[in-house]
């Protein structure tokens, strides 16, 4: 068996982390993307830039600030301690928070593009047909933006799977809690266990390729709003 039980634990943990992160991001990313797509507020630029920051920042920067913020002296850390939750560093919950921040633009931007492409007209039409805003969201926006949601979910999931720097900075490499595949690969390479590193790294390459293949081949011509 080329992969150890520790490797499988890392794979399972990574899957859990990426799934949970994706679900959370779809839930909180959707209103952000809706707002960004439709607002005329002056805050649109700054908020859009903040959401996009993880695209350009090195993960170590995000990890470093999270380590400080979630630590016992940081604002987040003091809040979570006051709530009786302790600190979030070295925990799965902490990784989820880090991943949500780190993968945010990969979910928000495809959604925002989808909402922008839909434009305000279908929402106006639905309103004149007596649909309240929630009704309108579920019966018009959601179905029309479906390709955007699929892209967002795939990219969010895949990008979280590929996360390394943030986990390294705040994870503490705890088996079954914070030791994800990318860190496990790093460990193997550091310990000169090249055979195991190859198996995991190769699996990552195959996985990433399949994900992107699915994404690009599913992008058929979307029905346009007429």
């Amino acid at each position, binding site marked *: 068996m080329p992969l150890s039980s520790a490797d499988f634990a890392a794979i399972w943990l990574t899957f859990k982390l990426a799934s949970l992160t994706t679900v959370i991001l779809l839930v909180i990313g959707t209103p952000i993307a809706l707002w960004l797509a439709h607002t005329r507020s002056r805050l649109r630029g700054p908020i859009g830039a903040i959401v996009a920051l993880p695209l350009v920042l090195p993960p170590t920067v995000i990890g470093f600030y999270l380590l400080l913020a979630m630590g016992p002296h940081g604002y987040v850390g003091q809040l979570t301690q006051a709530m009786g939750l302790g600190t979030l560093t070295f925990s799965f919950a902490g990784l989820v928070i880090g991943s949500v921040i780190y993968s945010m633009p990969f979910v928000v931007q495809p959604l925002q593009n989808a909402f922008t492409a839909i434009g305000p007209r279908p929402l*106006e039409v639905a*309103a*004149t047909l007596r*649909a309240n*805003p929630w*009704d*309108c969201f579920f*019966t018009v926006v959601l179905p*029309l933006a479906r390709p955007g949601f699929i892209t967002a979910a795939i990219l969010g999931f895949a990008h979280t799977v590929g996360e390394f720097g943030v986990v390294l900075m705040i994870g503490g490499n705890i088996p079954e809690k914070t030791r994800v595949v990318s860190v496990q690969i790093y460990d193997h390479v550091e310990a000169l266990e090249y055979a195991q590193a190859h198996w995991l790294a190769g699996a990552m390459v195959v996985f990433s390729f399949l994900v992107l293949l699915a994404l690009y081949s599913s992008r058929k011509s979307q*029905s346009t709003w007429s």
Partner: protein
Amino acid sequence: MSAQINVRLQLSYSGFSLDLDVQLPGKGVTALFGHSGSGKTTCLRCIAGLERANQAFVQINDEVWQDSQSNLFVPVHKRSLGYIFQEASLFPHLSVRANLEFGLRRILREQRRVELAHAADLLGITHLLERAPNHLSGGERQRVGIARALLTSPKLLLMDEPLAALDSQRKAEILPYLERLHAELDIPVLYVSHSQDEVARLADHIVLLSEGKVLASGPIGETLARLDLPLSQGDDAGVVIQGEVCDYDARYHLLTLQLPHSAQRIRVAHAPLAIGKTLRVKVQARDISLSLNRNEHSSILNSLQATVIGETAADNQAHVLVRLDIAGTALLARITRYSRDQLDLQPGQTIWLQIKSVAVLA
């Protein structure tokens, strides 16, 4: 006036402002007419609540939809209106039937006054129900859009240049359906348009807008014949006449109409219609010629006696516009200044007019 629509709107963006206060009839078709940029679409969107004017009062018959003084603003989805956009804006992810049902399902059963089968029949889309919107022609899409709006049983139908995106063939295909709506349903309609022909054909009442302000508001017949409005200046300027069918000549396929409050009649080429039915015709100013005597021997069918009311300069120096009256029915004639001087036209003078052609509207 018992049933009526009151609209007061004030709003301004950079470079555009809208400031109007109109009372409109609570039934029939009212056209909001003007050039692009005159504010007619904005006005319609404010009435629908799609846009929010800073100062506004919108009352449709007995319902107040917006009153900025008491901070009342009924959200769009709670206003009983149907809105037809310039492009049909069908939901591409739903079939024609599901598009029609979208609004219908959101109306309480006891408040439904239009049934799906009836609306589909009225607009001639019954055979399209199971199709996807992107397999329809532009005209078919617009008809589905209209049926979809009707199925919410609205108390007011707002139509924003529903024919503007269509070519003339599609327009011709859809106009009869709009006329049937007008005839069969008792829903007041606000119809935005910049086409005089459409307005003449469909509207009972017209509001003339220019740069965000109301230039004129009144019944279609009088308003189109007013010499003080830019309406009379256009090449397609003309009036709408309503007459009552009093005879049909099967041999020549000619229908005879009696003008209101008058013994005078006009004849038009048309299919047979029941005696007593009213018919609207449009007479273009450029199709009327004037003479001092009755011209008996001519290919021109209609020769009527009228009184000269006044005149105004036309957009071209060789022409004048003359307003005429036949027992309360206003008419416009576009003649040369030379002819005017030859005939020595004076207000109050009785004169003969010949109508070269008559377009039957409805």
